[in-house]
């Protein structure tokens, strides 16, 4: 691996980590809310949350680009505070965060749904306030599902391409992640060095998905033992 490859790897891991940490509290809150509600509003919210899973990433990128333009809704607001996102590392974080979000929310929602509703209620009768009952009972019981979702989201963030290239470009040393570098090297005929990065991504992705599988299996075993 060259020092350039290493920098790209570092940037990719940094972006994926920041994006995952960014969506973690929001994703857990969204998963919990979706597990509680019912009716058409919940179905609608679930559909909206899941959209990045099924939309072409480039389409999500274009939507983000429109919103983040200086004349766009969010972009105009940020611009008034002197914050510029497009074609920066923050844009890479945002794009990967949006694309990874549903992969965190869906397992988190399922994990919250599996928690016996009586348990936090009993915690309340034992003196816990609503937040304490959530922290001491609901959250630890849903913990493995949330961890599985977090690892899946991180894996997705490592390989994000379509939305990222639209809102952050493919700027070496600034916004170029592994996925973007592979594309660029292949595009200009540097197949050997592209293949080197492919193997790096394979190892990274394998590690992240394997970790999520191990966590998920442990969860089923614990549930089996309890049931």
């Amino acid at each position, binding site marked *: 691996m060259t020092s350039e490859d290493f920098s790209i790897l570092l940037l990719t891991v940094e972006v994926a980590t920041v994006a995952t940490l960014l969506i973690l509290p929001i994703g857990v809150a969204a998963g919990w809310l979706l597990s509680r509600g019912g009716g058409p509003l919940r179905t609608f919210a679930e559909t909206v949350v899941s959209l990045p899973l099924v939309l072409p990433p480039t389409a999500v990128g274009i939507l983000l680009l429109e919103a983040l333009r200086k004349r766009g809704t969010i972009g105009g607001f940020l611009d008034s505070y002197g914050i510029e996102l497009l074609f920066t590392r923050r844009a890479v974080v945002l794009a990967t965060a949006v694309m990874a979000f549903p992969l965190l929310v869906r397992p988190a929602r399922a994990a919250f749904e599996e928690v016996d509703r009586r348990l936090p209620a009993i*915690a309340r*009768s034992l*003196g816990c306030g609503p937040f304490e009952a959530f922290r001491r009972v609901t959250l630890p*019981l849903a913990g493995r599902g949330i961890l599985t979702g977090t690892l899946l989201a991180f894996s997705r963030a490592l390989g994000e391409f379509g939305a990222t290239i639209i809102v952050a470009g493919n700027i070496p040393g600034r916004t170029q992640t592994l996925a973007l570098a592979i594309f660029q090297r292949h595009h200009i005929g540097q197949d050997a060095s592209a293949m080197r990065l492919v193997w790096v991504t394979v190892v990274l992705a394998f590690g992240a998905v394997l970790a999520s599988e191990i966590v998920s299996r442990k969860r089923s075993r614990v549930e089996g033992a309890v049931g």
Partner: protein
Amino acid sequence: MIELDLSLPLAAFPLQVSAKLDSDSVAVLGPSGSGKTSLLESIAGLRAARGRILLDGNRLLDSARGVRLPPERRRIGYVPQDACLFPHLDVRRNVRFGMRTGSREGTFDEAVAILDI
């Protein structure tokens, strides 16, 4: 003494209970689905019932006056009919769960002695 005058809409029918309970022990009898658990959960504050619940003169619920104590302030122990332990905690931590934070270590043995378990 528990004074009840409450109503709670259930899926099959609206549960309505008016009673003054002044015995040390009270048994609530009824067929499955008649609202026994819902009644207990309402007293414990785990169900959103309307009406009035007084425990030894303390107002736990009084919808007319806008009083609705949360479960943690009612000081009512509630034991479900089936074993319902916190599965993520060991026996010691289950027994200690209701003790306030910062209580000294010996309280586990005290709790075991009090509960005679």
